[in-house]
């Protein structure tokens, strides 16, 4: 009972800590924009450097979608709907969600361990002593970089995924190319695209916030930074899936 209470208290404390941190971080986001080169560097770090893994994963997820979708749809004799099924699946679900999970593993862990090591080697303290707020100089550009990079990565993921689905469905399984694209064009609306963009923006805020928060508050030891990195992956993944359900329900 006492142990359970401790866990709940710890969870509430962390939630409160993260919320306060988010508010302080948001207050520093505007000043951080006055140093655009820091922001560009972070968009490059979290975004451009994740491109290869995002494109590869997108291709394979799209190809699997092509195979499974074709297998399922042809049982009902409606394999011409493959384009629509792949597009909706990628835009609304797989694009934002898988991108967020990959982001947490690739960019989130890098952010957490980088900031955690800066903490452990007194770099953040040194900045404070030099009257430079590390929230503005270190945390805010990394957070903003993640928030901006996530929707772009998700878009790339979906486009490559569609290409993969088309590759399998049309080239391999013989679905008519014209039908594949025209059905998609007719059925997919702006609302579906918006849902994907909103989701990836929300996931971007959540994953970047967790990564920066965990790094910033990591215990300044080797074990502490390792633990913080693990927590980033676990918390980001679970929160992404939870938020995905909430947002899906909201958009229905």
């Amino acid at each position: 009972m006492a142990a359970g209470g401790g866990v709940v208290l710890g969870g509430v404390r962390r939630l409160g800590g993260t919320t306060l941190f988010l508010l302080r971080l948001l207050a520093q986001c505007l000043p951080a924009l006055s140093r655009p080169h820091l922001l560009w560097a972070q968009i490059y770090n979290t975004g451009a450097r994740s491109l290869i893994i995002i494109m590869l994963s997108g291709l394979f997820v799209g190809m699997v979608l092509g195979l499974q979708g074709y297998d399922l749809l042809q049982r009902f004799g409606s394999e011409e709907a493959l384009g629509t099924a792949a597009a909706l699946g990628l835009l609304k679900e797989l694009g934002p969600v898988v991108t967020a999970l990959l982001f947490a593993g690739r960019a989130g862990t890098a952010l957490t361990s980088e900031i955690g090591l800066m903490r452990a080697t007194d770099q953040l303290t040194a900045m404070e002593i030099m009257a430079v707020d590390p929230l503005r100089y270190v945390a805010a550009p990394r957070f903003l970089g993640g928030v901006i990079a996530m929707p772009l990565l998700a878009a790339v993921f979906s486009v490559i995924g569609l290409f993969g689905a088309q590759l399998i469905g049309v080239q391999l399984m013989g679905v008519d190319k014209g039908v594949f694209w025209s059905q998609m064009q007719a059925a997919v609306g702006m609302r579906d695209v918006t849902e994907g963009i909103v989701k990836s923006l929300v996931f971007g805020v959540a994953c970047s916030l967790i990564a920066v928060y965990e790094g910033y508050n990591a215990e300044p030891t080797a074990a502490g930074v390792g633990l913080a990195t693990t927590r980033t992956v676990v918390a980001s993944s679970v929160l992404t899936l939870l938020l995905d359900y909430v947002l899906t329900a909201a958009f229905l």
Partner: protein
Amino acid sequence: MRDVHYGIGGRPIFRGLDLKVRRGRITAIMGPSGTGKTTLLRLVTGQISAERGQVLAFGRDVATLSTREIYALRRRMGMLFQNGALLTDLDVFENVAFPVREHTDLPEPLVRRLVLTKLQAVGLRGAAELMPAELSGGMARRVALARAIVMDPEVLIYDEPFVGLDPISLGFILRLIKQMNRALGITSIVVSHDVQELSSIADDSYLLSGGRVAAAGAPAQLAASDSPAVRQFITGSAEGPVAFHYPAPDYLGQLLADA
């Protein structure tokens, strides 16, 4: 500092500390490991605030200052960290230029001249292009010193500046601390446990023990002191008021109980 009390995790670090640093002088703060020397520096720079008592910096109570005022205060201070604390994603030049770029809008040629003169002062102008990971410990500390003085602070704080230095770097840092003080009139606070090195440069010194100032005065006065705590620290003996052993159960009893 007047009657400062501070504790970490329920363990009291300071119990009524009184300490004064005079303008334009080198003040040494000595004490065995774990007496809170680093905590003291965190109090002075306003990173933490005292539970009781007052910490005055430039005549103002640090605890009553707003964040903005504390930042303004810190711009008048420079601090040299034990491990240098250089920013690992910037090269040596940019590390030294960092405070200048953050706090001023000086044109690039001026920034360049300013940084190069400071690097020249620590003998590392040739290392401007290197990354912090490529520097030895002594070099990193010299770069950090160049960074600490680039904004021409009124007070310079050194946290354990002599730890792990070879004799050449050590002599160099000692001379630099002295020069910086004599030539530029920078008030210097040196925190260390290297009695010999400190004695050669300090004007005033304080010895901390048990959360209080155990002794104060010129280094020569401290060396001549007959207080047991001071004698133990200066002669480096394990026997004396400061226990070498952490509190433990009876030695023989514990050994035999495990067998």
